[in-house]
């Protein structure tokens, strides 16, 4: 900041605080709600102070879940979500890094054609191609499996495109120096390109993880076996019983569902900061 006007400062802070409060208030309500006892919600008002049932609610959800909604315990669903989100994230990153590497550094016939082909799939997210994709997965017998949950979501035009743009900014002399230094294509990829992309990888990891974690429609469609339910669809099924929803328990599940993405962001934040300071210094 160049200017230091006290009034301006106070005003900007006020606006920022209001903004933060606006965003955080619902989160706060959810957390508070998850600590209430079963009766609280029936009164029709939203409690604003924490109640004393936090432990009971969380333990109940973690261990046994809502028996009425046929959903398994939240612990199990969180685990399923984690596997799915990680598989999608790592799969997307691996595939997009490799395809961007191929597109930028190798001369093969129809290179540009393939690039555009990948690019065009940007326009076809899961929701658009969901019926044919479901057919394929069903025919391959991958319903109710982690493979079925993650593989169809792995192809990523966005990440491929971003890595391509990044690789194109790496000076060509870097590749040439590596060639003179006796590094073949994969050594170059592993020793030079990957470490240089680490900040981008961390950023995409967060985005992809949250994308995978928040998948709702796809898991809903292909899982019928509660062993493969993910937390996001599980929460939805808990509220299906209209008017009778045990909100305190649902909120406990919601809070648990929100934690892993937050943790991922916190972990990866270290990496971006490291990456950023390292390239800037």
């Amino acid at each position, binding site marked *: 900041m160049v200017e230091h006007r006290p009034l301006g400062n106070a005003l900007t802070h006020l606006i920022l605080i209001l903004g933060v409060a606006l965003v955080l208030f619902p989160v706060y309500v959810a957390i508070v709600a998850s600590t209430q006892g079963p009766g609280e919600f029936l009164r029709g008002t939203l409690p604003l102070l924490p109640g004393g049932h936090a432990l009971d609610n969380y333990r109940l959800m973690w261990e046994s879940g809502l028996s009425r909604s046929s959903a398994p315990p939240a612990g199990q669903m969180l685990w399923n979500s984690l596997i799915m989100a990680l598989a999608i994230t790592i799969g997307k990153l691996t595939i997009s890094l490799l395809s961007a590497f191929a597109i930028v550094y190798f001369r093969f016939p129809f290179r540009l054609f393939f690039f555009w082909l990948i690019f065009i799939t940007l326009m076809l997210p899961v929701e658009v191609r969901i019926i044919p994709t479901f057919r394929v997965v069903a025919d391959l017998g991958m319903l109710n499996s982690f493979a079925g949950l993650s593989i169809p979501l792995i192809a990523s035009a966005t990440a491929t495109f971003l890595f391509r743009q990044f690789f194109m900014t790496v*000076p060509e*002399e870097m590749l040439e*120096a*590596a060639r*003179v*230094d006796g*590094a073949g294509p994969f050594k170059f990829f592993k020793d030079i390109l990957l470490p240089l992309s680490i900040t981008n990888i961390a950023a995409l990891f967060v985005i992809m993880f949250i994308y995978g974690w928040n998948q709702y429609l796809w898991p809903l469609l292909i899982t019928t076996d509660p062993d493969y339910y993910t937390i996001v669809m599980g929460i939805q099924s808990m509220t299906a019983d209209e008017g009778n929803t045990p909100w305190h328990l649902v909120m406990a599940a919601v809070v648990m569902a929100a934690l892993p993405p937050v943790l991922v962001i916190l972990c990866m934040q270290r990496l971006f900061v490291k990456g950023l300071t390292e390239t800037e210094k």
Partner: protein
Amino acid sequence: MARLKLEGLKKTYAGDVQAVKGIDLDVADGEFVVLVGPSGCGKSTLLRMVAGLESITEGELTIGERKVNDLEPAQRDIAMVFQNYALYPHMTVYDNLAYGLKNRGFKRDEIERRVREAARMLEIEEFLPRKPRQLSGGQRQRVAMGRALVREPEVFLFDEPLSNLDAKLRVQMRVEIKQLQRRLKTTSLYVTHDQLEAMTLGDRLVVLNGGRIEQVGTPMEIYARPASIFVATFIGSPAMNLIPVAYLKERGNGLLDDLPPDTDLVGIRPDDLRIQPPDAPHLVVESTLELFEAAGAESHLYVRLAGSDQPSVIRTAGQSPVAEGETLRFHVVREALHPFNSASGKRTV
């Protein structure tokens, strides 16, 4: 150390762009050869063909006893210093130097020994644990040199390695590169477009123009006897003056009668236009001083020859004897004339 031999090297890029049009050059074992030429003449392309970074369209390239046309850069036993250094930004200086050796499967203690040795020679030992971005331009340049040095290759290739440095550092590194090459006696090919580097660094100088060799020789040979108008005007600063023979003959000077009949242009270096009349027989030319430029140790006088539009430059020490706009008389001895034929562009004797 090895001999480097280029025979009829040609490079044609897609779209029939002929960047290198047939180069024959024999670089002796331990020799330092400098390639110089205007921008776009194919210097980098030629160097990169030797390095193996660019394929060879035609011709044969031999390093030592091996024909290396189809070998990868790493198999040619060359090391290259890039113009922008191309250091690996995420590796420490130590790792930058060690990377090539690691890839070649050297033992760890041998790598350590070589890296320390090179770092000592280049005085970059204290920077070994740093990353490239924590170094100044000059230090990075040294690291880039170090990366080439540790490999102890048969041939060093340099592509304008000093062009990103400031003037003072450039002079210092130029001297160091020359000393280093003398000491290591590694065959070297050095690309530059800097006059001074070209004249001072190499045992031999190769002047390139439009993908072809104009002249090869020691720097002094080339300076003293440029083989073509191109070389005459390219080497030397300020550039050599070119004056039509007819103009000089008009001034009634019998001195020019022994020039070969096809000479129609003579070149005269700016230092050879003397303001003081010499003792030897000489030409006297009148001119108008247009601009006086003092550059410290020397001064440049921009003149226009009397009775013609011909501009020329005189280099002298000290002040101008006349004011701008006044008439200046200068003198040229016979030995200072470089006879050329303007149609062929070649020297006539």
